[in-house]
């Protein structure tokens, strides 16, 4: 019975969503808003399909996703590795934590001009910026996670005479995993954003170019199609990492 009610609500929500789409289409059709600025949903959808059919949109999507993933994977590996080392050592934390805390609120996009200064307007620059930007959440969360391991578990490990390595792998890492996964999710979003920013600034193609060029030429269906694809990438990333999180963190008590 409960299942049916849940389904009912879901269906109602979908209906509301479709309703909004309908409203949007209506507004576009009746030209309440200048059609140059606001294409209808159907126009947008067609523009997207056309883009993929000609291969242009597909190429750009691939470029953006590639940069996003390369940078994010590198950043995550470095973040976890470095974070584990720093988080496990009281001394390292004492010396490094204040500096890291100060750097935390810095917008990672601010590193773009520094990146340009060193790497020029290149693909390497974009990936570098993406990696740098998505490093911070993971690094900080890993440090925090490793530093905040339940004291009791450390004592259990001492009683069992576990080696330092075993403590890090068997106790600290699983304990820090929830924080690390949540931060990696944030890191992926950051990676996407920086990828687009980098593309806009460095003329590196990708979806960044798609939306920028379209907006400059007032070709709103193409622009909205690009936005739609970016939204879908964001959604897919979120769902994928959420699923991973659920799978890895099965053991958590139901909240």
């Amino acid at each position, binding site marked *: 019975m409960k299942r049916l009610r849940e389904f009912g609500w879901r269906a109602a929500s979908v209906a509301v969503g479709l309703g909004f789409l309908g409203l949007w289409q209506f507004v576009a059709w009746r030209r309440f808003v200048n059609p140059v600025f606001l294409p209808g949903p159907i126009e947008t959808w067609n523009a997207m399909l056309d883009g993929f059919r000609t291969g242009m949109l597909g190429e750009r999507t691939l470029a953006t996703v590639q940069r996003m993933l390369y940078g994010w994977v590198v950043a995550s590996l470095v973040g976890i590795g470095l974070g584990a080392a720093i988080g496990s050592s009281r001394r390292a934390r004492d010396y490094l934590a204040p500096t890291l805390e100060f750097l935390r609120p810095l917008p990672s996009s601010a590193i773009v001009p520094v990146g340009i200064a060193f790497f020029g307007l290149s693909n390497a620059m974009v990936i570098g910026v993406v990696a740098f930007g998505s490093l911070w959440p993971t690094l900080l969360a890993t440090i925090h996670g490793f530093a905040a391991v*339940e004291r*009791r*578990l450390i*004592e*259990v490990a*001492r*009683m*069992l*005479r*576990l080696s330092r390595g*075993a403590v890090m792998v*068997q*106790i600290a890492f*699983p*304990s820090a*995993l929830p924080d690390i996964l949540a931060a990696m999710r944030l890191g992926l979003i950051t990676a996407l954003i920086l990828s687009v920013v980098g593309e806009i600034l460095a003329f590196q193609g990708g979806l960044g170019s798609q939306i920028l060029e379209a907006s400059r030429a007032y070709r709103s269906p193409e622009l909205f199609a690009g936005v739609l694809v970016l939204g879908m990438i964001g959604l897919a990333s979120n769902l994928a990492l959420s699923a991973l999180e659920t799978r890895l*963190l*099965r*053991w*958590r*008590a139901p909240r």
Partner: protein
Amino acid sequence: MNRQTAGGDVQPAGAGEALVSFRDVSLTLSGRRILEDISFELKEREFVCVVGPSGCGKTTLLRLIAGLMFPTSGAVHYRNQIVRQPASDIALIFQDYSKALLPWRTAAGNVALALEAIGSPKAERPARISALLQKVGLAQYAGHYPSQLSGGMQQRLQIARCLAQDPTVLLMDEPFGALDAMTRQVLQDEILRIADSGGTSVFFVTHDLEEAIYLGDRVLALRPNPGRVAEIFDVRLPRPRDQLVTREAGEFLQLRRALFDFIQETGH
């Protein structure tokens, strides 16, 4: 005092000899004297309970035996060697059991951790794990996560993990304090059985006076500020103990009286 040099070889203690001995042990932390001139012995196959008001250092005594803390003066010996680090055959059961279990491993996994730590051969592990879970009555819950177990079951799981070390000495820090009365009684009898069948010495910290008399061969009563051994009571009740019979025995009631009086005198 964190000398973490490796401990020496373990020499078997002779029959009736002390396994653990405290000689004039004192401990000062942050300027406060926690323990003063503690001297006593824990013998083989002995069940010693420690009682005393809050803050008298009962848990500290336990942690000194465990090798998690070290005395400021005096010496703690295990098998005639100074305790410098946790020994592989001393197991510690913590009071906050939920925090002492790995939440991301199943019950079987938690027990496996101890077996991994002592380097038990992989092929033997599954059999040993189910035997241990069987012993504490958790055989059906091998695949459950700690968050899915009740308080009593979690405590039993901790006991199972500790038993995986094949301990000669079992240290227990108010293990049943957070459990309801019924579960407590069941686990009291279980621990008596386990200690008896394994020939294990037990050092049991509790604030429940009746529990101390019921379980122990001797009861160590501590006086607080600073913690000192005030009196050691011998418990001459017959074994095996029984929740009804033993608790009604004359000797039990006398000891109970004596302990209650002692606690009254030493304040709260």
